[in-house]
């Protein structure tokens, strides 16, 4: 079973994502900020991470950079979720190594399709 780590400080979106991903048959873990995300990523070793950009402690960009700098996480897929919809920010996310960039609000169906594609399940 593929493992997904959900990182967001907003419980209201986490609850939906967690429910959705479990229904789609993934094993799910949750982290509420950047620091927790890094420790969870190490312990849980997910296949894919849904990463919010705007978070306390460490931003999603920082987490992404840290993960990409870690050779142990080379196979990890990173999907960035953000409330900022600017082209410039998307460009930044992709430049520092995110695999996909999804802007809130998003369609849950599209998100599932995207996740499955990245994990080679589609």
């Amino acid at each position, binding site marked *: 079973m593929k493992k997904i780590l959900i990182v967001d400080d907003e419980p209201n*979106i986490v609850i*939906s994502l967690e429910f959705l991903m479990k229904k789609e048959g993934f094993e799910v873990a949750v982290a509420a900020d950047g620091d927790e995300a890094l420790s969870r990523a190490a312990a849980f070793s997910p296949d894919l991470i849904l990463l919010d950009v705007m978070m306390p402690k460490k931003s999603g960009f920082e987490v992404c950079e840290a993960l990409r700098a870690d050779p142990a996480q080379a196979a990890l897929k990173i999907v960035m979720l953000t409330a900022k919809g600017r082209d410039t920010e998307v*460009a930044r996310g992709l430049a520092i190594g995110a695999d996909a960039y999804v802007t809130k609000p998003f369609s849950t169906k599209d998100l599932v399709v995207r996740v499955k594609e990245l994990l080679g399940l589609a």
Partner: protein
Amino acid sequence: MKAKARFLIAVVVLGLLMTGPFIVTSFLVWVDMKEGERLMLTELLLSRLPLGTTMTLFGFTIGCFVLHKLFKQYVEGLLGMGEQLRLMLGANRNFRVKQEGPPEVQQLAQAANDLAAQRDALMSDVEAQIAEAKASVEEEKNRLAALMSELAQAVVVCNLDGRILLYNNRAKLQFKALSQGPTSVAGGALIGLGRSIFSILEKNQIEHSREVIRQRLAAGKTPIANFITTARGGQLLRIQMVPVLAAAGEEGQEAAMSGYVLTVENITRSLEEESRRDQALHDLTEGSRAALGSIRAAVANLIDYPDMDVELRERFVKVVDDEASRMSRKLDQTMHDFADSMKSRWPLEDVLAIDIVAAAQRRIEDRLHLPTKTEEIDDTLWIKADSFSLVFALVFLASRLQDHYAPRELRFRIINDGKLAYLDLIWAGPAMSSETFYTWEGESLQAHGETSSLTLREVIDRHGGEIWYQREKAAHRAFFRFVLPVATPTAELPEERRSTGRPEYYDFDLFNFEDQTIDLDRKLSELVYTVFDTETTGLEPSNGDEIIQIGAARIVNNRLLKQETFNQLVDPERPLRPESIPIHGITEDMVRGQPNIDIVLPAFHAFCEDTVLIAHNAAFDMRFLQLKEERTGIRFTQPVLDTLLLSAVIHPNQESHKLDVILERLGIVIDARHNALEDAIATGEVFLKMVPLLEEKGIVTIRQALEAAEKTYFARVKY
């Protein structure tokens, strides 16, 4: 031949006439005589020789005396009269030849005076007509000036060299408020007719706007260009440029630009409100995304999985309820903030990315002394930016890099990626940690003494841009990438062609002025001058006498500008000499508390920049200035003209060249004298009268004037 030489020849001829015939006759008789006769004659002559010689000498002396008298009365008298006639012809029409000397000379003088009277009658008739025509032109100019002075906007008109031809009061106030440092002494000398606009505004930006206008003209669009610039003290100015077009010669030919009009608006004060508005809008859009995202996901789950258990269903419904009310509150708050803030937008202007880079390079090299280079540069890429804060951000990063990693050089790169522009600041060196970069991102911008209230992050947000740090591992170097939105020029329809007629109110000769860096072969009538005078504690600069006042005015385009003056008392930091107080009328009370020469001299130096100096008896004033060179580091290297010497060039046979005497001789009436500014203005009037007189003598260029002045007798008297 000089009159003196002619007089000497006449004396010699007189001597020869009186002695020649006797000597020749004696010689012939001597040759003819026999030995006995010769002896007898010698004896006869030798005994009477003293008497003969005395008589001859007596006659010669009387002859010389008469000759001298005649010479004085006729030759020198006529020479003097000739000079007076020239005066009457040119500088001073009301001058009349003095009736003195022998009757024949007096008759000549009378006739000349009668002729002058006749000429005056004719000329006043012509002048009346000219005056009438001039008055109507003057009225038009005044109407324009009145119109401009009424404008609430600051307006400056310049020719293509950036020389100011016209400005209104608002512009003067605007720029005066910006002036700092020495130029604010004595009323701020930043703005003035004939001065360069580049001392106030960035030359590159002006040149760039001119190019924009040229292109728009060629494309048949409205010729207008805007830019935002920072003046001294970090003030933000929004400048709009429109061209002044010369009358088109041929039908259908492009109207050439002969100058431009700048309207200047200080937008610094509105910044804070604008940024608040920006923040509000930002909160509204981006703040809603998260809430909407939660709602959408929860609703999708509710719809997609209708058979979920009750507890879960309730949790999702609660999410929707929570987020919906949070969004409502946020909306209210944002609308409230929005209503408070300004209506106008944050001023992002279309700029060429390469201009931003060029400005940043110049600053980094000037301020940080760090070499810069460019790599891949897309020089056609336009971005939407506030050039000031963006350049500041680049300089800030450069300064941080210099402090932490001491790179040998910085490089810039501009890449066009469709809708986005990449502006990279590259350096070679070890990897930096992301933490460091995030710290810098949150710091207020500051570099080399300048600070901004904005952080790097805020500047980037304001541009709707992004910035990140990235490594080029292979090249062992790293870069900061600024991502900025590309400006897409709005398509505009070509307008109807403007009428190419000469604009009614623009009739200023200055439009034809070319650059005026001082060239010694330029005509005297074309140069820009600073006429000045100093008052001093005494006459001996090398003995501790000091300057107590400097007064100066400018001459531009053959006009003395009495509004653009420099008038400053100076604290000499030593007691005044009581005997000098009646001369200059300046008392101890007046000079105490005034700036000292260390402050005034740089201001005066700035006032005189790029001009030729003029003073009466300039050697005296220049000596005082030169004695301060070492202490203040200020040197006056421009050419200096002396009206005293020029007067001696024009009227070598007049005895006095004092300023008062020259004023009277040239028919100049001055209200007040003996204050430095008034004397400077009087000197200026004298100089303007002298220009045509010098031309009559074949002295046209400044080089010729300097050479002629050097040859006069007075030039040899040095202080």
